[in-house]
């Protein structure tokens, strides 16, 4: 089973402490070593983003900056795991890391299963 972890937090905030970055690097290495993380990435701030929107039959591209959002997606990682529990367990460790090394940080990791093509196959059994 494949899971996508979306890390959400309030729009930043001060840069992360060095201890946090070190611990993150270590956790990333461990995730690689465990053979479960298949992709990951951090996202640039909303200010540098663009939005392409379809609304009332019109496609519009809008460049930032945008009004502040309460929470933004700051990064993601994709894991191949046995179960949702394993995904939750991994996400908890990731949050623990924030608690330990980045005082004051608040946010969440959203755990979403990535569906395989079979989920969209109209012939597939329900």
């Amino acid at each position, binding site marked *: 089973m494949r899971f996508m972890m979306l890390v959400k937090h309030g729009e930043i905030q001060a840069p992360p402490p060095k201890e946090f970055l070190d611990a993150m690097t270590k956790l990333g290495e461990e995730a*690689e*070593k465990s053979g479960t993380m298949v992709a990951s990435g951090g996202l640039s701030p909303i200010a540098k983003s663009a939005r392409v929107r379809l609304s009332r039959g019109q496609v519009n591209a809008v460049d930032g900056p945008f009004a502040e959002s309460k929470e933004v997606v700051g990064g993601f990682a994709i894991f*191949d795991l046995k*179960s949702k529990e*394993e995904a939750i367990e991994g996400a908890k*460790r990731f949050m623990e890391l924030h608690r330990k090394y980045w005082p004051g940080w608040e946010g969440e990791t959203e755990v979403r299963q990535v569906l395989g093509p079979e989920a969209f*196959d109209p012939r*597939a059994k329900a």
Partner: protein
Amino acid sequence: MTATDINRTIDAVWRIESARIIAGLTRIVRDVGIAEELAQDALVAALEQWPQSGIPDNPGAWLMAAAKNRAIDLWRRNKRLELKHAELGRDLQAKQEMAVPDFEAALDDNIGDDLLRLVFISCHPVLTTEARVALTLRLLGGLTTDEIAHAFLATEPTIAQRIVRAKRTLADERVPFEVPQGAELVSRLSSVLEVIYLIFNEGYSATAGDDWMRPALCEDALRLGRILAELAPKEPEVHALVALMEIQASRAAARTGPSGEPVLLLDQNRAHWDQLLIRRGLVALERTEALGGARGPYALQAAIAACHARARAPQETDWPRIVGLYEELGRLMPSPIVDLNRAVAVAMASGPAAGLEIVDTLISEPSLKSYHLLPSVRGDFLFKLGRFDEARCEFERAASLTRNTRERDLLLDRAKACHHEAL
């Protein structure tokens, strides 16, 4: 949290942590069987305590600490026994020995090296292949005996026995907990790769049973392969095996139809291939090549798989290159199965008559006597050549040889199609 939720969380924690715990403990107690029992004791303690106390903040560390305490208890108990046997005059020396070794450091230093040692000991040549597979899944994959039994269509006591016997053999033979060096490393590594690929293949095309694939086994093997690639990053064949498995696994969703029937490579919907796994596979293959290992047996097989992965449509497949790779593979490790695969590629590159010519040289091959893919491939060539009666016989023969029910149905369908064509 309900009791079921807690148990499922414990399962997940166990899967994440067990290999590291067992590896670390084995270094201390020098016996993989005892290490595993200690780790199991810690798991049992978690199963007893967590439903009451709740899941600890750091469940991995909790399990590690519990296992460590048990290791220390065991160590003290053994020391006390030794002391009782020791003479009084040696009391002082014995007292010094009573100081507990630094378990903390032993468990935290180089856990990676311990894991690698655990891989090598689980796949040690003193064990039968079956035992290596079971022990690897158990110690490194974190699977329960029951899960292994289910995966290999064996009973739980059979697998439990197999694991007990394997651990005893390792103890009796005093197999050291170490990473082999020099010339030995090459042969030992190839035993490890063989075990992982065997697990993968059992999942990829189940030799028996009602399912054509058991994807969980593929995932276990892939995970083991990726772990090994991180532990032994300079070994080209390790990356090659990972590349091969990533690319083959990328087709998993396309390999079965809506009711679980097999879909052959050229009939698959390539939009259902997992591009993330393909990319990972191609990167692993590049790493193999960068390490100078492009001509190894797994590297060649991975290169063949990559030819298919790169083709957006079946007709874009570079068959002449695949033929060349099979020729090279056949020279490196001559095998009638490689020849059979080469025949398929030759038929695609130069027509079914050319393929049939090769297959006909394999008919008398004793090792292929009851291999269902020989008549299956031959039947396919004959069918394409319009020799439907002969093709039907071959498909029927192939159907009688396979132990996989899904595959049997497919072959019987093809036999039926010959019958219609012949009319």
